[in-house]
């Protein structure tokens, strides 16, 4: 175990926060509905990526969209805006 004084020395001088994912924790646990993408219907237009407020849609032109379920809050915007209707909102439990 570390002594409390050595822990104190490791704290920054000012309360400076550093950018990192999960500043509010694993926000995927907030979800009641989960977006599930049917890649057979998906045309890889990228609109789900464009409109995600949370930056939880990872998109490449080759592979299309993938959702980061650790942080996706399940707002449903991607499913609502998908022109190909390729995203379903499915109950979590």
């Amino acid at each position, binding site marked *: 175990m570390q002594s409390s004084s050595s822990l104190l020395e490791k704290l920054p001088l000012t309360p400076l*926060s550093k950018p990192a994912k999960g500043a509010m924790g694993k*926000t995927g646990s907030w979800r009641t509905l989960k977006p599930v993408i049917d890649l057979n219907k998906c045309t890889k237009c990228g609109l789900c990526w464009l409109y995600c407020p949370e*930056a939880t849609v990872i998109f490449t032109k080759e592979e299309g969209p993938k959702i980061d379920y650790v942080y996706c809050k399940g707002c449903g915007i991607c499913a609502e805006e998908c022109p190909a209707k390729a995203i379903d909102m499915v109950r979590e439990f």
Partner: protein
Amino acid sequence: MTILGLPEEEYIMSGNASCPGCGAALALRHVLKALGKRTVLVIPACCTSVIQGLYPRSGIGVPVLNMAFEATGAAASGVVAALKAKGKDDITVVGWAGDGGTADIGIQALSGAAERKTDFIYICYDNEAYMNTGIQRSGATPYGALTTTTPVLGKKEHKKDMPMIMAAHKIPYVATATSGYPKDLYEKVKRAKELKGEGTKYLHILSPCPPGWRYDSKLTVKISKLAVETGLWILYEIDRGKFKLSGPSKRLLDPSKRKPVEEYLKLQGRFRGLSDEDIREIQRWVDENWKNIEKMMETE
């Protein structure tokens, strides 16, 4: 690398504290794509200071100076002066504040900064109430909206025209935008950034808020677009004094091209108490705003 013409880099970190479907978070994500890494944000008390999340992490990928509610314009002026003294001229200073922090308590500090030609970008994200403290009315709350301080009857006054107040300061750039048109927003922030050295640039972004406006979080983009399509929210730029409609608003000068305001209002619980007379009053207000735009375009 770009996707749909926008940079792939993200400066909004996933797992921040914004509500599901937050229009302000969506707008900030694209604003930061346009601004890039060499940016300092000044953020007063508002939802965004909450969105940052809890120490020791920050949900925003650029340096942020958290400031008192009323002081964004003054604090940003200080940051601009400090960077100048240090000879750092490649950093964009941006004030990012809510409608309460801009149209109400922060208007004095902002007006002073603009009048002094402070070289920064000021962005008001407008969710049309004091959301962070529980949906109290602001000067930017629209007519008829229910808030916790305008219960039962809804607000009786129309929205304060903040972008035009800023235009009256004769600053080099004023623009309006909304979360549902990220590309339009991105281009406007880029333009504001380009005008570095010319004084204060002002952007006003209508940002739908699911809990405050009382709608299902999936509708944020739809409602944002309807605000424009009904003509309630007009997209424009005033670039070095030259007024120009932008995006879908360009084809809406003709009233027959505008959707009826009901289409926007009926999706939101905050407008559930409107009478037919109230709806007519809102439509009248929208049509009058457009007449003023028309007059302004004629005199140019």
